[in-house]
């Protein structure tokens, strides 16, 4: 057949590569600032925009969606064109994908700094930006599928299978988890509440790891590793089995983020077993990658691209073994809410995503600039400094996690908690936090060296925006399966059918877990004494969400003696039914707060304590690492939103009486005056309309309703 000549679009690849480097540095520097705030809480500089609760989402979103996201687009736009022997489907769509994605990132950084957040981890973007994300993601998928359809190759390669799975699954996850009712342009309430919100959120959160940080990068590995090593893929059969097993099983594993929580036991069990079953499918990717290097190991010692790849794939293997282990109840009882999770996440982010991204950049930048990597020596230095950085980052966190979990659980012979003051268990970790910051700093030094090396490479080369290639047009073949043609081989030349099968595979697990939580009432037993928040408490809760309190404080007491002794009653599904969004948290840098308002409980503090603590935490505990929230004392509560908030809550099924929205502010001011009067009796002058009053009201409500139910914990049975 006649050869057709066409041109690969390298310009879009270059743009994404530059964006990857730019956002990588920003995301990691913000991460370093967070790490340093553990040692010097004053590094928030006393302003709201740099507090831990607000910049932690900037860090996580920047690294995941800006650094890894742009890195993923870089690699996909480069490899997809070459694997399809076709230019991207539409240059305009490519440009919209690029500029739209950068716009999203800028909006994200700004809104998070201003406290505009949904309070759902890794999905903090408010609804207008969520819509933009969905649109840009569809543009990406449209452009990709279009390219695949007009390809000049018969079959689609395994890398593309992973790209397709990435596209369909992220679309489903993002849309489902972001469903919310707007209160205003910058505020919405999710349609889910409490346990349901938690399950949907962690179904999303876990699979963002699976389908944003894992599947696209496995796709990149399947292209760039054999290309760089010039070796054939070890096993096509393994590719098929581990691909389908991975995408089918992964979607079920979300509940492992909610072990020992108020999530129904059956859902927890599913989270455990599907995580354990993921070990082999995950390792399938590692095995296929490492065994592809057979016969090329001598070159791994020489070639920085292969070196970065080997560590990336090894880090992937480590975290995909560690993940299932952390998903067993035995390990989870120790690892959850501690820095173990943070260490685990960074083995994945720094090792797997970071190293593979740099392998891809070191591979393709010299090629699109028609030159060689400027310096192998600097690349090797980057490699060693970054590897050391990962070790210095992760090891102290694992050590710290075990130390802290042991301190939380230790009892004296007399039957008392040995460390009843939570702060002691944080202060103990300060040396580990310092070492972790050094590790993170080293990793950034490595990145800077890498960027320097790439800049010199770019300077020495000449950019080739349009790369000529030629291939014969795709011959027409029957759509039906040929005699002797395997089903899968057939599917590989039918990309639309392939996409549909992949979609079905990823929908099954989510539906089976999420739907019963809505339809089967016994999953969330109601508690009669649990009532909706008062308007003042609701406003206070929204401030709690705005300030990102959930990034350091959980609201989920686990059924362990060490937790019911420390905090009080363990968490019940029925107590969260009016929580839009849920605020269970995933990490305890400070104590759990869900029993804060139980007057006879051991966490109780008077209003004046909360006032003084928000103003200056270090005045009450020199060792405290909590930043000051002094602006809550001077800023006025926005009363104009109260009525609208009540109406949205009513729409979501929260049983406020009819017409309550009209009198909500009267109710609010009455309650606020009570708190202001109490503070006055303690010598504190503050107007009842300040934000601090609403925040105190919310904190004083936490746990009250469950306690009022007077349920002796021992009679609450799980079976």
């Amino acid at each position: 057949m006649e050869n057709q000549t066409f041109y690969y679009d390298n310009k879009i690849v270059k743009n994404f590569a530059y964006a990857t480097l730019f956002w990588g540095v920003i995301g990691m520097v913000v991460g370093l600032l967070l790490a340093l705030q553990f040692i010097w809480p004053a590094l928030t500089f006393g302003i709201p925009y740099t507090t831990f609760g607000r910049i932690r989402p900037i860090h996580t979103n920047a690294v995941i969606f800006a650094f890894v996201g742009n890195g993923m687009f870089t690699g996909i736009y480069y490899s997809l064109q070459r694997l399809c022997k076709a230019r991207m489907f539409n240059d305009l769509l490519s440009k919209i994908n690029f500029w739209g994605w950068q716009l999203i990132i800028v909006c994200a950084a700004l809104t998070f700094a201003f406290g505009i957040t949904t309070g759902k981890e890794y999905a903090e973007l408010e609804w207008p930006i969520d819509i933009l994300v969905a649109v840009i993601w569809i543009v990406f998928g449209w452009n990709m599928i279009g390219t695949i359809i007009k390809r000049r190759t018969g079959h689609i390669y395994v890398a593309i299978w992973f790209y397709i799975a990435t596209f369909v699954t992220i679309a489903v996850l993002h849309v489902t988890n972001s469903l919310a009712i707007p209160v205003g342009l910058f505020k919405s309430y999710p349609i889910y509440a409490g346990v349901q919100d938690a399950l949907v959120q962690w179904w999303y959160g876990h699979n963002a790891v699976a389908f944003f940080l894992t599947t696209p990068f496995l796709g990149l590995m399947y292209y760039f590793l054999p290309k760089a090593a010039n070796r054939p893929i070890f096993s096509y059969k393994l590719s098929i089995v581990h691909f389908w097993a991975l995408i089918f099983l992964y979607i079920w594993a979300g509940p492992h983020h909610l072990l020992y929580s108020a999530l129904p036991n059956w859902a927890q069990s599913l989270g455990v077993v599907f995580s354990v079953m993921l070990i082999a499918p995950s390792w399938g990717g590692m095995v296929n990658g490492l065994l592809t290097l057979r016969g090329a190991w001598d070159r791994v010692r020489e070639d920085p691209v292969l070196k970065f790849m080997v560590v990336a794939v090894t880090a992937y293997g480590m975290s995909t073994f560690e993940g299932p282990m952390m998903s067993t109840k035995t390990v989870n009882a120790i690892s959850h809410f501690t820095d173990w999770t943070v260490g685990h996440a960074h083995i994945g982010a720094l090792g797997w995503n970071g190293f593979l991204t740099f392998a891809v950049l070191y591979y393709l930048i010299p090629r699109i600039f028609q030159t060689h990597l400027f310096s192998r020596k600097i690349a090797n230095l980057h490699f060693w400094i970054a590897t050391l950085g990962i070790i210095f980052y992760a090891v102290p966190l694992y050590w710290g996690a075990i130390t802290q979990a042991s301190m939380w659980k230790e009892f004296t012979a007399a039957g008392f908690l040995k460390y009843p003051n939570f702060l002691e268990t944080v202060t103990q970790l300060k040396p580990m936090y310092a070492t972790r910051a050094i590790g993170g700093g080293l990793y950034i030094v490595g990145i800077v060296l890498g960027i320097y090396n790439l800049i010199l490479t770019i300077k020495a080369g000449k950019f080739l925006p349009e790369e000529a290639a030629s291939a014969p047009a795709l011959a027409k073949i029957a759509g039906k399966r040929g005699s002797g043609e395997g089903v899968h081989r057939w599917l590989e030349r039918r990309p639309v059918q392939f996409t549909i099968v992949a979609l079905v595979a990823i929908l099954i697990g989510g539906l089976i877990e999420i739907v019963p939580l809505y339809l089967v009432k016994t999953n969330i037993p109601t508690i009669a004494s649990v009532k909706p928040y008062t308007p003042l408490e609701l406003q206070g809760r929204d401030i709690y969400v705005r300030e990102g309190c959930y990034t350091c404080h959980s609201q989920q007491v686990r059924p362990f003696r060490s937790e019911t002794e420390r905090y009080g009653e363990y968490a019940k599904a029925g107590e969260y039914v009016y929580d839009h969004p849920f605020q269970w948290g995933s990490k305890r840098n400070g104590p759990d707060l869900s029993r804060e308002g139980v007057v006879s409980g051991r966490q109780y503090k008077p209003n004046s304590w909360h006032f003084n603590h928000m103003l200056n935490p270090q005045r009450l505990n020199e060792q405290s690492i909590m930043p000051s929230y002094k602006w809550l004392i001077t800023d006025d509560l926005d009363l104009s939103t109260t009525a609208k908030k009540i109406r949205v809550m009513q729409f979501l099924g929260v049983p406020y009486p009819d017409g309550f929205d009209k009198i909500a502010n009267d109710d609010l001011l009455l309650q606020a005056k009570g708190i202001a009067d109490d503070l006055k009796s303690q010598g504190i002058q503050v107007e009842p309309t300040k934000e601090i009053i609403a925040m105190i009201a919310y904190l004083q409500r936490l746990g009250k309703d469950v306690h009022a139910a007077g349920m002796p914990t021992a009679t609450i049975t799980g079976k």
Partner: protein
Amino acid sequence: MEINEHKAFDKDELTGDKLLSGHEYDNIRELDNNLPKWWVWLFIITIVWSVVYIFLFDVIKVAPYQQQEWKNEMAAAGVVAPGQSAPVDPASLVALTDQASLDAGKEIWMKQCKVCHLEGGQGLVGPNLTDNFSIHGCTYGDVVNTITFGAPEKGMISWKTQLTDDQIKKVASFVMTLKGTTPPNPKAPQGEPCK
């Protein structure tokens, strides 16, 4: 595949493994290797483990759910409400004065009490403990009772679940030594004057 792709298999020169014909994507080729046996076994074992797990926990329910685990843990610890059962007669107690007890009391003070009363006892959230006024009684026995049972409505929690009788006596004895000291920025007097 062997049926429909008639060409003879190429072999990979370095490993001698079979290359699949027709599998070539931007010069990437694929080998026809089988799944590694250990990998297949690993997968099977995790699946069997999972089936057994669900069977034990969720079908025949012999393995304990978390609520039962908690009950077992509490029972094993023999947890009955620790500490005191009834208020002591304030008059019957005498403050400890030996240095070891006061040092131990101070250690507890630094961990648990100064958060509200500040280091020197000058008071901030909680009342000033250095002046000659008191909300809940002035004697050593009154202090022991206040620490033990608290005054939750005023913000003082009960410490009987976190401190032993002995610890409470020591920290109360330390509190008695604060009276009459003059730390900076004392809180205004609260309660009744002591005799």
